[in-house]
Every structure is written in structure tokens, then in C-alpha cells.
């Protein structure tokens, strides 16, 4: 097979990290951090997803091309988000243009 065998303890280690991060995100959500709650929750989720992708999905050992495919999917979703939200967030910057 293409990638070397990963020792069981690596998988268990990642598993424990994921559980710990889950507990952390639940506990942090109970604190009053305002908008920061959202940011922290997303950061933790991204870290968890990255761990799953790199280790459980073997992307760390995969070819560069595979890594490019992985990044491309998320990058394209980011395009959808960024440009759509740019409309919604900028609607209040200028008065509504009327041409009637």
C-alpha cells in the first residue's frame, strides 16, 4: 500500500485530543465572551477537523496533489461565504440606491 502503517497509539492519541477539544468547546461556550464565543468555537472546530483530515484520513502522508484537492474544496466554500456575506454586510454602508 502507499502509506506506511500508522501505530495504534497515534490514532488513540488523536482520538483523545478530539474528545478533549470537544469538552473544551462545550465548557468555553458556557462562558460569556460575546462575539468571541463564535470565533473560539470555529477555531476549535477547525483544529478538530484538521486532526481528522491529517491523521484519520491520512492526508499527512498523502501526495501533494491530494493535499491540493483537500484545500480546494474548502477554499471554494470560502469563496461562496466571503462574496455572499460581503453583500449582506455592506448593504448598510450606503443608502439604498433608487432609480425610480
Amino acid at each position, binding site marked *: 500500500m502507499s502509506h506506511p502503517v500508522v501505530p495504534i497509539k497515534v490514532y488513540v492519541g488523536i482520538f483523545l485530543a478530539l474528545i478533549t477539544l470537544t469538552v473544551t468547546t462545550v465548557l468555553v461556550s458556557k462562558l460569556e465572551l460575546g462575539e468571541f464565543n463564535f470565533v473560539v468555537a470555529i477555531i476549535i472546530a477547525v483544529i478538530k477537523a484538521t486532526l481528522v483530515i491529517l491523521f484519520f484520513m491520512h492526508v499527512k502522508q498523502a501526495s501533494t496533489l491530494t493535499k491540493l484537492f483537500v484545500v480546494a474544496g474548502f477554499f*471554494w466554500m470560502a469563496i461562496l461565504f466571503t462574496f455572499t456575506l460581503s453583500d449582506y454586510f*455592506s448593504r448598510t*454602508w*450606503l443608502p439604498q440606491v433608487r432609480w425610480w
Partner: protein
Amino acid sequence: MSTTLPHPDLDVRTNYLNADYGWKSWLFTTDHKRIALLYLFSITAFFFVGGAFAVMMRLNLLSPNGIFAHDTYNKLFTMHGVVMVFFFLVPSIPATLGNFLIPPMIGARDLAFPRINLLSWYIYIVGGVMALAAIVRGGVDTGWTFYAPFSSTYSNTHVILAAMGVFVAGFSSILTGLNFIITIHTMRCPGMYWSRLPLFVWGHYATALIQVLATPVLAITVFLLCLERVLHTGIFDPSLGGDPVLFQHLFWFYSHPAVYIMILPGMAVISELVACFSRKAIFGYGFVAFSSVAIAVLGFLVWGHHLFVAGQSMYASMVFSFISFLVAVPSAIKVFNWTATMYQGSISYDTPMLYAFGFIGLFTIGGLTGLFLATMAIDVHVTDTYFVIAHFHYVMVGGMVMAYLGGIHFWFPKITGRLYPEAWAKFAALVIFVGFNLTFFPQFILGYLGMPRRYATYADEFHTLNVMSTAGASILGIGYLIPMIYLAWAWRFGPISPQNPWHAKGLEWEQSPTPPPTFNFIEPPVVTEAAYNYSGEEAEIG
């Protein structure tokens, strides 16, 4: 179907068409060439279904008061758009010519996933049947763009059936694109570096990127629309707290890149035709290849130009407008490079080249008018008028359909092993060109003068131009019928074609028999020269 490799000493008249007989050998085939033919016949059928709706629309527009009820007219233009966009244009060149030619062009025996290829055709058929069912049950009247809240709340036509047909057909498109991307990455033969790929392959690679990355967003949009139609929770309905513009954002995130799905394969064909019939390597190969990918990527950043008058913020609109100007640049680069290829080339005026000339001229007109539409100050006047309709028909019909016909003629000998009658083909190309321009050029003027689109009636002052347009449409319709007849005749009775009737470069012509055997090559090919090496010493005089 047999899957053993052909023995080199086998009778060379055994090819993919006669390797096996019976309906099962066709409906359960995994041979990309047979699947391409399955698509060819189904796509042609849908073209004529969509065309029939167009004929009825143009008949209606012969007189200012129309002949159909307004609701009926709404259904006509909707079904024309749905069928032509989703069941003809999006699959057209990729699923037929792309499927057939990409493996031999890169020196492979098949695509990476032959069974998924067959599955994609079946999925297309299921989606097509659903769309036909919607037609038979009375059609849909929302426009092919399915704008909410009309489509989600107020229309009482079979929106869900049609939308789900589109949803299903989208998966066919995704699987085709996925297959192409993986094939081009992993199955190039020795010596077939990325820099030696035919531009046909580059164009389809760029198209496949769009198919894979854009279509899922259409899928979720249509899915949410159908749920909304059933549950009326308000996600797109302003009277219930929803935002109809959100639907438009999600819809056009796919549908704008989709129009590049509907032109890049055409450009891919034109590169091959221009090189062969100028007997010259494409000028600026790297620029053309890069431009294909640039169009695909930039095409994802411009969808908001469909929302200029929808209530989108001025800032977002300005960004979308600016990037829309940018995306015209790679298209222009291609047109310049094709022209430069022809300069000091040895031009022959065979039918495929006539279609290529038509493409270059008509696509340029269509593309330039796209720039007018990208300019917000102009768009507010011509949006939702016939100007827009003329623009996209110039690029999609004057562009893509001409490229499709050019490609069908060019590779007809390769696909069928026979030659088509050149005189009839030239005649049909001319009829199509005249009919097309007579149909759609008046529409630029009509739009500029203010005739709205998607209206069953119009003001008296637009009468003459509409009559011209309908006259052109009847000529265009005849023009499309003529090839159906002579190509069908030639497939059965045409003269047997030599291996390389055009003396073209490319693995599919030079190292694969005509028609190809099931696994495309007798000997595994090795590539030792750049693409379009027409000036090489071993090139034959055309």
C-alpha cells in the same frame, strides 16, 4: 461485454462499434466511446425538444399580441431554458466529444472510472425523464432561473418535478467532471506532460473543475427550494421573513460558472480546429491553456453581476462588476491567439473550419456585449430585456453550438469510420450562420430599445424586428435539420474514412485506428513531441 485486450494481429476492422453486438453490450457498456454515443443520441433528442419550445416562442412573437395564453408562454420560455441549459448545453461537448476523445488524446485506454461514466449517463436519463414528465404534466412557468418566492410559493406548476430533474442531472455533470479531472491527472501516457496536452484536454479540465465545484451548490439550492415549496417555512419568502436575494446568490454561484461550462469545451474544440486547418501550432499554447483555467477560476467570482438590480449592495456590485471585466481578458487572449495562429498559416475551408470562423466572430460579439452588461450603468437599462437574451444566445448558440457542430464534423470520421458529404455540410453551415444572425442580431436592437424579456406580448413598435427574428429562427431551424439528415445518412452509407482524413496531429488521429478499437490503441503510445507539431518534418501536406 468482452474485456480482454485485443491481440495485435487481430483484423484491424474490429473496432469499438462492432466489437460486440446487442442492446446489452450498449446499455451495460463501460467503453467511454460507446457511452459518448449514448450521450450523443440523448443530447440530440433534448436539443430538438428545447428547439421545439423555441419555435413556439418565436411563433408567438410574430405578432404583438401573441397567440398563446400568457401563462402558456411563460411555460414555453421556462422549458426552453431548462432543457437547453441543463439537458443540452451543460453535457453537450464534454459528455460526447470529451468522453470519446480525452482517453485517446492522452494515450489512455479508458477514463479513470468507466462504470461511473456509465452511471452518469443513467443519472442524466433519469433527470431527463423527470424534466420530460414535468413538460408532459403541463410544464413550469418560473423561468429556468426558478426565482423565489414565485417558484417556492406562488407558482402552481410542477416546480418540484422539474427542479428535481435538474438536481438529478447535476449529479451526472459532477460525475463526468470528476472522471475527467482524475483521468487527466493520473492516466497520461509516457511523454504526455501537461505542457504537451492538446488544448482540447486543457479546456475540458477547466470545465471539469467548474462541474465539480459549482454544481453541488445548485444541488443544495434546488433542494432547499423544493423543501420550501412543501413546507412554506419562509427561507426565501419575504412575507415570512426570508430573503429572495439569498436564493439568487446561491443559484448564481452555480449558474454563472455554468455558463463557462457552456463555453470552455467549445473553445477547446476551436483550438483543435484552428490548429489543424491552419496547419500551424496554436500561437501561445501556454497562454491559451492558462486562460482556460483562469476563466474557470475567475468565473466563480462574478456571479453578483446577475444581481445588480436585485437589491445587492453597491459595494458588492462594484466588486463583481470589476471582476467581470477581468474574466473577459482570458477569453480575449484566446481569440487573439486563434487569430495569430491563422496568420501565415495554410488555411483550408473545410466545414469544421467554417464553424470555427463562425465561432470566433460570433463569440467575440457575444463576449463584448457581456462587457456592456457587466457595466452597472448600462445594465440597469438593458437587464431583463432582449439585449441580455441576444448576448447569451450569441455566446451559447453562435459560440458553443457552432463549436459543437464543428467538432462533430471534424471527428465524425474518427467516431464513425466514414466521411460526411462536404458540400451539404458547407451549405448547412452557411444556412445556420445566416439564420442565427437574422434571429439574434435584431434582439440586440430590441433590447436596447426596451423590449422586455419573458413577456408574451410587446409594443407595436417592436413588430418589424420581431418578424425578422422569427424569420431567422425558421432558417436556423432548417439549418439544424440538414446535418441531422446527412450525418445519419453518412454514418450508414458514407465513404469509408482513411485513418487520418484531415492529416491532423494528435494521438487520437495519428496512433489510434479509425474508428478506434475498444482500448483505443494497438500499441501503448509514447509521446515525444509537443502538441500541434505541424511544422515537424514528418507532417503531411494538407
